[in-house]
């Protein structure tokens, strides 16, 4: 097994014991990126050769010097007999929406393409303080607004490592692809409506949206402040637990970060599944979307292979002693997307007002007559189509004359979505669930350009994930098999408030129970035919 194939847990164990040097791990990761990533995302027009078309393109910026310096520091600590941290020598990529001092933080947008972070996000700092090595900043949909990575202003956008003509999902597509293609062991992403889980599912990796407030948002460029959650992506559940362990906890500089004690997520993995109550809900078997002209609701069942993977997972967990509770009602899940269209757009429009060509970022080079013209020109030239659409929609639904129909109503529907979860997780209620088991996405990955441009259809790809964001509860996606085209299927475990330990425990159990299955031996296309040292 090559160094790049090692889990974060194994890398840290070997580095901490002196069996491996962090510098060698960093060099191996850099070599892997050099071999399979291709040209980094750029604002400049690019014409790609067929060979480049089939590369991963996860990175906007490879931070070679930073990674090597951090590795040297870890090696020095070990040589000095000092504690190097739980993530000693572990290669990490960071979604380019987090501030990392000394690096550009672009949000994949022209409007802040030249922004140099003056400080480092709390989540990133905790990871590097624990010995992680930042290999670079990875691509995303512009300002995280999308589910395919294609809206990035930095092209080429990321491809799916399993089959490069497919999208990696989004918005943390660069994160998921960099982990799946073994460029890094861990990635830091964000999840506002499914932006960790959907790409993790499409790329066959593990991703966790923690409870709202479990991980600090300081240093994250905000999309929708009441929904945004930083979280881990990795190739197995143990690594996700390890990364969360390091990041979680109150931050005095984020008043929404929770003061509740952080659990021991690694210890939780050692417990068995006997007696746990895991629910299946008919409300996660289809997506409901409107006809764009008539507004009539259509129902589209979840892709059969995805549905079958969920049922199969339930059978496997039942054999290990879990109790499967069927027909759990989650009746308000279907309203997740309309509610999201309102709440997330209102918050996005508010957060995007700060980008105006004055304090930082892009300013129009044109001569302007006054400050208003400067604002309009800079924003017109700096923002891509998707941010413009979200600003306009957010302003419309929050306008005084419409707010009671849309924004106020959406906030009340959010209460109803939350109450679904409260009822099924209530320890004194009828269902008393430890977790809900659902598909992560209604389909496996779609092809590039198949959906991009249709903002409604793109948004509905988050229907299985978005309710957890409205409710604030934690949710984990992990691989559950492959479809007939060899594309990964994601299954999702949703837990009660701050019960990340529970969904990690169940997810880890499923991983162990299926460790020898044939589908787990499949490798992404970009890794096939590699000659490993």
């Amino acid at each position, binding site marked *: 097994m090559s160094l790049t194939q090692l889990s974060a847990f194994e890398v840290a164990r070997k580095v901490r014991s002196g069996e491996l040097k962090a510098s060698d791990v960093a060099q191996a990761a850099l070599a892997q990126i050099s071999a399979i990533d291709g040209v980094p995302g750029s604002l400049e027009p690019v014409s790609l050769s067929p060979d480049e078309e089939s590369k991963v393109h996860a990175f906007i910026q490879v931070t070679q010097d930073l990674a090597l310096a951090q590795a040297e520091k870890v090696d020095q600590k070990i040589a000095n007999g000092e504690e190097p941290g739980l993530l000693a020598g572990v290669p990490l990529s960071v979604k380019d929406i987090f501030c990392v001092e000394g690096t550009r933080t672009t949000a994949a947008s022209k409007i802040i393409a030249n922004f140099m972070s003056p400080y480092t996000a709390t989540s990133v700092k905790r990871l590097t303080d624990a010995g992680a090595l930042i290999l670079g900043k990875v691509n995303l949909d512009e300002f995280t607004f999308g589910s395919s990575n294609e809206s990035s202003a930095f092209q080429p956008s990321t491809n799916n490592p399993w089959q490069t003509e497919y999208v990696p999902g989004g918005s943390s597509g660069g994160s998921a692809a960099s982990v799946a293609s073994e460029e890094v062991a861990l990635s830091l992403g964000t999840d506002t409506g499914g932006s960790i889980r959907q790409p993790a599912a499409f790329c066959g990796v593990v991703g966790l949206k923690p409870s709202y407030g479990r991980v600090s948002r300081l240093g994250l460029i905000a999309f929708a402040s009441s929904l945004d959650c930083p979280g881990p992506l990795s190739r197995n559940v143990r690594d996700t637990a390890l990364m969360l362990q390091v990041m979680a906890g109150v931050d005095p500089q984020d008043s929404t970060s929770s003061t509740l004690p952080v659990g021991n997520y690694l210890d939780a993995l050692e417990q068995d599944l006997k007696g746990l109550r895991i629910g299946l809900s008919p409300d996660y078997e289809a997506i409901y979307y409107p006809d764009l002209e008539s507004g009539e609701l259509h129902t589209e069942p979840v892709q059969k292979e995805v549905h079958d993977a969920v049922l199969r997972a339930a059978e496997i967990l039942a054999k290990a002693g879990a109790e499967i509770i069927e027909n759990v009602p989650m009746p308000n899940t279907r309203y997740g997307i309309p509610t999201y269209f309102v709440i997330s757009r209102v918050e996005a429009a508010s957060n995007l007002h700060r980008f105006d*060509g004055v304090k930082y970022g892009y300013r129009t080079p044109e001569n302007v007559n006054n400050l208003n013209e400067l604002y309009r020109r800079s924003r017109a030239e700096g923002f891509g189509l998707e941010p413009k659409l979200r600003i306009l*929609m957010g302003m419309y639904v929050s306008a005084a004359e419409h707010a009671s129909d849309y924004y106020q109503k959406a906030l009340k529907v959010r209460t109803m979505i939350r109450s679904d979860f409260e009822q099924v997780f209530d320890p004194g209620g009828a269902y008393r669930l430890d977790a809900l088991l659902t598909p992560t996405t209604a389909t496996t990955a779609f092809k590039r350009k198949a959906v991009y441009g249709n903002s409604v259809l793109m948004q509905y790809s988050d229907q299985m994930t978005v309710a957890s964001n*409205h409710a604030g509860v934690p949710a984990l996606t992990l691989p559950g098999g492959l479809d007939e085209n060899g594309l990964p299927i994601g299954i999702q475990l949703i837990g009660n408030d701050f019960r990340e330990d529970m969904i990690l425990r169940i997810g880890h159990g499923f991983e162990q129970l299926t460790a020898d299955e044939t589908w787990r031996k499949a490798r992404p296309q970009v890794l096939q035919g590699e000659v490993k040292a």
Partner: protein
Amino acid sequence: MTTKRISPELFEKLVGLAALELTAEESAYLFEEMNHQLASVEALSQIPLPGDIQPSLHGLEPQGAPPRPDDWQPFAAPEKIIALAPETEDGMIAVPDVKGAK
């Protein structure tokens, strides 16, 4: 059921309020997409709500630390912040004339 549509006039007003300028091509696309999204959002109007239901600004109410004291804490390296501005004069961020013609 027919869906509500945003009028072209209202759309133009929103573009102005958003401090944006759009090309004709952008306008045509964004106008259509906004109306398509409205078809989804209109589903909210069909949802019966219990009369006493309260709005939720957060799904999981923040259980964070109380706000820290409102004490002035200078940023360690203000020159890093100023250096990010597109135009500066004497350590200040510079902008065009606020009101009108130069």
